[in-house]
């Protein structure tokens, strides 16, 4: 889970990049299970949560994920606040 501080404009650019450039590639990574992007407009905060089959798949994707996330943040001008890893204990979609 990536946490970012974003202006509404930065968030829109980020959305575009994630949707058009990262997702098509991400979908072919082994163990990738999905991505959720959440925006808190009032407080200028964006959460990007990517879902992985298991810990190993997450680990294998970390390096590339980190590089692309950094590039994306640089391009949009957003500030990266945190990267955290969680175990999904309940999933009902």
């Amino acid at each position, binding site marked *: 889970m990536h946490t970012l501080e974003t202006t509404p404009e930065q968030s829109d650019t980020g959305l575009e*990049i994630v949707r058009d*450039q*990262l997702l098509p*590639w991400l979908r*072919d*990574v*082994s163990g990738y299970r999905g991505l959720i992007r959440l925006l808190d407009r009032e407080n200028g905060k964006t959460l990007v949560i990517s879902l992985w089959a298991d810990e190993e798949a997450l680990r294998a994707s970390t390096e*590339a994920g980190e*590089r*692309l996330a950094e*590039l*994306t943040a*640089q*391009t949009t*001008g957003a500030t990266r606040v945190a990267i955290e890893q969680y175990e999904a204990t309940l999933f009902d979609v």
Partner: protein
Amino acid sequence: MSTEFVLGDDFARVLTETTQALVCVLDSGGRILLFNDACERTTGYGRDEVIGRDARESVIPPEESEAFGDVLAYIWRTRLSSPQVGHWVTKNGDRRLIAWSNRLMPAVDGEGSFLVTTGIDLTESAEESEGALSGDVEAKLAEVGRLAQEQRALRRVATLVASEATPERVFAAVSEETSRVLEVNASAVFRYEGDDTATVVGRHDREAVGIFSVGDRIFADDNTAIGRARDTGLPARIEDYFAIDTDVAKTMREAGYRSTVAAPIFVSGIPWGAIAIAAREALPDESEARLMGFCELVSLAVASAQAREDLQSSRARLVKTGDEQRRKLERNLHDGAQQRLVSLALTLRLARAKLESDPGALEPILAGAAQELDLALEELRELARGLHPAALTEQGLAPAVRALGERLPVDVRVDDLDERLPDYLEATAYYICSEALTNVAKHARAESARVTFHREPGVLRFEISDDGRGGADGRGSGILGLRDRAESAGGTLFVISPPGKGTVVTATLPLD
């Protein structure tokens, strides 16, 4: 004025009625359709008693009725004549020994055919001679009849083997035919299990004694005929189970068997199993020799089934290897060049954003983009070379292998090969060299490797040798993959890899 003599229906009728020879016509089911005067005189049966009925109900003695059926089936299947010597039983129970000629005759309407048989009664001449001599003649004729029956049984099994029947069917047929031909109560095919046991893989017994079933594993030490046949590689016999005190002997005794003969079945030069027969009485001396013919057929059936199995698993491995390689290629593209291009796209976007806001920051961003692009290109080149190296098409086998060698962390020397060979052959040879050299780099801990090519009449032979630690597993997946490639091109591949002495892979590929 002369009258022309015609070989017509009348002549046939007169000849049939007047000849001293027995003339009998049968249909494919063994029913008697014609029974001439000589037949009536010899057997004491009247025509009305036998016409339209199966010969096995009247003139064919019960002990020969099975052989009679075999002869009919053989003649109708092959359309060939099959001279026979056999007995007929007269109405009062005497046996007459008759030598038969026969030929199939198509029916007038063209539907089906009849077997015309003519016979000479040998009984009188045999009896007129001295007693010893008559016994001799009859014994010889009986021997001829028996041999013919054995040949037919062998042919039936051989047909089954040739039709690629499953080994299980062949084992069952061999058991049945051997017990019939050797006139014993029970027969079984055993497979040795590499220890001192053997598994029953086919069995037949005439009296349903049923002491062994298919799948049973029995103890086969040197107190058993099959154990001795395995240990000596020669046929073996147990003359008398009543003289031995083992569990197997006890089982056999209780089933009423006195003696056993077993003959070994060799596959690829090693004892694979045995055919064994068992009887209530002592088995005749020639039993061993007669079993051997069947052993050879079983050997053939097992070897050809193994060859088919090897071929199937080789095909399956080739398909699996192909799938794995495509999967690997997809991964390499995705994690390598694709990922670099995604980040390149992002970098260019970043550069565009900085164009107005911070032109000074452009320089390092664009330098990074150029580097990323170079890396992506190099990765794509590497992948493309792995698919089919351009050097192979442009310059041929030896230069392509040399170029490959230069990219490996081992010193590779490659001989010249002056001529160009057909594309597929160069490709197959290249991949074998490539995989073999990759194995050298990965596993051999070698300092140097050498590739030599020898163009021989009709074949290309080449060797990949190294000075590494040797001890490569000839059945490991790496070498199996190499062998599959060579064999799929009709060639062969051998690996010699003594521990500590390096490895030599020798492949031979046919040129057409």
